[in-house]
């Protein structure tokens, strides 16, 4: 229990221990712990970043999908409109064609009527002439009365 030179020896030993600890124990361990801390922080940050990116990508995908959907519906609408138009157009064309055909047919009929009438007229005129011939054969010369016949046939033609 006496205070003696142990005091000095202990103090020296203590300072040596502290020096060793300061030099060889504390710094490497602290450095390792700091490095680990930064590594963990980095990892956490990367994880967070990844999650954020994932969320962003999801959002973007949703947007693209929505866009695509909108585009598809646009296309369908357009197609529907176009189809309607085409049907209308076809209808119009068909009506036109029908009208044209009708017109042609009518013209043809007209012509036919005209030619039939012409023929009829000619036949009538020939018949008339032959009848007149028969009636006035004896007294009328065909060549002398050509003018009158022509006049009659022309009048017939006007009917």
């Amino acid at each position, binding site marked *: *229990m*006496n*205070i*003696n*030179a*142990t*005091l*000095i*020896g*202990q*103090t020296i*030993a*203590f*300072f040596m*221990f*502290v020096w*060793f*600890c*300061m030099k*060889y*124990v*504390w710094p*490497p*361990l*602290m*450095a*390792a*712990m700091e*490095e*680990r801390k930064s*590594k963990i922080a980095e990892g956490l940050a990367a994880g967070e970043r990844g999650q954020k990116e994932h969320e962003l990508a999801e959002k973007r995908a949703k947007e693209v999908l929505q866009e695509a959907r909108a585009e598809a519906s646009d296309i369908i609408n357009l197609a529907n409109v176009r189809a309607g138009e085409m049907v209308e157009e076809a209808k119009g064309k068909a009506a036109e064609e029908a009208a044209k055909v009708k017109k042609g047919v009518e013209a043809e009929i007209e012509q036919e009527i005209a030619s039939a009438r012409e023929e009829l007229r000619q036949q009538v005129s020939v018949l008339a002439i032959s009848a007149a011939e028969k009636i006035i054969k004896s007294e009328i010369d065909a060549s002398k009365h050509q003018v009158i016949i022509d006049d009659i046939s022309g009048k017939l033609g006007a009917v």
Partner: protein
Amino acid sequence: MAGENLTSSDYIKHHLTNLTYGQHPDGTWGIASGQEAAKEMGFWAVNIDTLGVSVILGCLFLFLFRKAASAPTTGVPTGWQNFVEMVLEFIDGSVKDSFNGRNPVIAPLALTIFVWIVLMNTMDLVPVDYIPHLGQLIGIPYLKVVPTTDPNLTFSLALAVFFLTIYYSIKVKGPGGFFAELAFHPFPKYMMPFNLLLELIALISKPISLALRLFGNMYAGEMIFILIALLPLGIQWTLSLPWAIFHILVVILQAFIFMTLTIVYLSMAHEENH
């Protein structure tokens, strides 16, 4: 557990005597035969047991911690490194809590103080007779295995802290600043001698209280273990077991108090304004 021809007081005295090496009054050098002989050797004697055990434990501490520090992994720490890092984290937290300046010495100092004192205090938990008895078998007359029950050790630690406090006070504030701190507080300048007296007492009481607190606690604890060892063999454990369990708390707590106060004193030494 005392020898057949030993009385209880002899037994206790034996357990409380250091193995002292020094110069006998007749001029020869050797090991003191008892406390009185050790006292006669005066200041220039050393307690071999205190010095030896503390240095062995100090080296053990440095060896074990160096083992973890020699190739620390920055990945997932396992086993021993994990434990060491836990201790370091704890010390670092304590230092950051109470030390505001920046000084690379403080944290390793605190670590050394804490672990070393814990190890030395833990020697208290070794049954009181084992090591002294072993020593007697190989011819060592006295062996006090708990270095912290030797005031030489606690005072040496406290003095080391005291020196550091004064060193950093002068380094940070300059000799004038340090003197001003002692002389011009808490009263105005014309009361300087009184201030100086007050502050010097406060300054010196720090290491003394630091040393005596640790010494007193460990000495008392050791004393109770010795007294328990004097009881009949059958009932010893009913007392020594609870006391040992309680003592685990004391071991850690005293080391922690010593460390924390060291940090606080050094922090005060670094602070510019009082």
